């Protein structure tokens, strides 16, 4: 039964607060995806456009043909044109594989420092943002302990930029009310007006 009572039925309990942080997380993930995705896409495409342009492919075909010619002249192979075509194709294919491999390697190398910077920025941002929540929580904790020990002079004021302003306001109202009641009861106790103290205490459910 108690379990039933604590079951959450509304997950959007603080719409503004929750949406704000959900958007922040989505933006962070999007930024990471953008840097990696755009980096790979632009890097690879620029390499492909550069290395596989009609002009470059034509150059590479000529180079493959030339190197096959050098090999034939040096190693004294016969004039087997078909074999030479296979050799040219083999040279070209290996070269293109190397070109793609190098393009990927260079894109990865270019992305690595960007990703490190991004992770660093997210880390700093995380500390900064979490401080807006962790700060008030820490303050609330200390103030609650002080109230427990009987100090009602504490406050729940937080910085303008901190989160949980509503909670702080409610807690401040609570301690102010307690302060007011305790102050009144203290005066009534000194004057021996027990009946009026009872009236004040009657609003507290224990």
């Amino acid at each position, binding site marked *: 039964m108690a379990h039933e009572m604590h079951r959450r039925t509304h997950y959007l309990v603080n719409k503004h607060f929750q949406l704000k942080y959900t958007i922040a997380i989505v933006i962070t993930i999007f930024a990471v995806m953008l840097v990696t995705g755009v980096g790979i896409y632009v890097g690879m495409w620029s390499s492909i456009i550069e290395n596989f342009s009609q*002009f*470059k492919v034509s*150059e*590479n075909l*000529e*180079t*493959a*043909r*030339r*190197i*096959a*010619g*050098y090999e*034939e*002249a*040096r*190693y*004294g192979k016969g*004039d087997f044109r078909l074999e030479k075509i296979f050799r040219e194709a083999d*040279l070209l294919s*290996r*070269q293109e594989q*190397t070109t793609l491999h190098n393009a990927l390697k260079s894109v990865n190398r270019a992305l690595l420092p960007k990703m490190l910077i991004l992770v660093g920025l997210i880390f700093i941002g995380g500390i900064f943002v979490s401080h807006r929540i962790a700060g008030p929580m820490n303050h609330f904790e200390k103030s609650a302990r002080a109230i427990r020990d009987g100090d009602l002079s504490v406050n729940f004021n937080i910085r303008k930029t901190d989160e949980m302003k509503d909670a702080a306001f409610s807690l401040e109202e609570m301690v102010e009310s307690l302060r007011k009641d305790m102050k009144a009861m203290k005066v009534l106790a000194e004057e021996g007006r027990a009946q009026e103290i009872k009236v004040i205490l009657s609003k507290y459910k224990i």
Partner: protein
Amino acid sequence: MRSFRRPKGLFVITALFAVVLSMYTPGVYAGSSDDTFLDRIQYDSISYFVREMNPVNGLIKDSSRPGSPASVAVVGFGLTAICIGESRGWIDKDDAYYLVLKILKTFRDTVQNERGFFYHFLDMRTGQRTWSSEISSIDTALFLAGALFAGEYYKGTEAETIARELYERVDWPWMLNGKKILCMGWKPEDGFLWYYWDSYSEAMILYALAIGSPTHPISPECWSEWKRPVDSYKEYKLIYCTTGSIFTYQYSHAWIDFRDLYDGDINYFNNSVSAVKANIQFCIDNSTTYKTYGENSWGLSACIGPEGYRGYGAKPGAGFNDGTITPSGIAGSFPFDPVASMNGLKRLYIDHKDFLYGKYGFKDAFNLDKRWWAEEYLGIDVGITALMIENYRSGLVWKKFMPIQAVKNWIEKTDLLKKEIASGTKVPSQ
């Protein structure tokens, strides 16, 4: 002599050099002296290595074609060519040294290597392996020849220290793969290639550097392990390369002065002289078949042709023929037959300059039968042109390269100075 304050960046050097080049290009016209003509060709050829260089790291393109990767052999030719340019006053002393140092530092610090050997082709931007190319023994040797030459040219400087460091870190015995002949290369995916430098070829400089290494030498016995096949074309008998390509008789000679070296009774300089004469004779004999060939149009060598790069060559050997000629075959023969080379280049220039001559000198090749002219320049071909013309004119490369300790080691270990064994073959003088 032009002199300007040393700029901070290679961009500035390259730009200024380009401006100076355009202002100072020697003119060639009917009746120009041989010197003016050779100045023009060398100047234009050397400019390839500055203009086609990545100013950030000093890597040089394999060919002038857009998209071409860097070639380590071309950088070797480039290092030598830059020093030649400086010696002739075409490149400011400080700028030339700056370029050389930039290249050497890139190869020491950035360029991918395996036991000191370099990949044949490199990415122009990163210096890393490209086009799945192989670790190439001969291309590494051609680079190191250029590096050692530059080190000797700038003796006592940081350039010499780095060049020596690059050379001494090469683990030459590894490239033997347990045999007595050097392998052509190695790939990380497949291991050693199936092909070995097992017969006469351009690889003499590779064996020389491998035997002469003070840190990781191969046995001197390896020198005698590769075959020296003998054959004749008409009256010209020679040790020949199976491709018959004339560059195989030139590349080692670009740095090594073989004139006074005798391998038993073989003098490789004289051998190349015979190869050049055989090449000329072959072209004369086939001039009725191919319009391009003739008394002044010869030099069959591996080059770009109408159907791509081919291993063109003459006899003796099994070189392919389709009427394509590369002017670098003629230019690279200057020390072996100066008269034929001068006549050949002048004739090509006069007859075909509109199609065949451009900003880096002679373009790579042409074929009259197929009405085809190459549009591009190959780094190794403009390189052999610049180096061999210099060896013919001043012997600069030979003079600087022969006193290098590694070369002395090789000559001593292989007894190449034992003239008494030689058959008395006449050594041509220039």
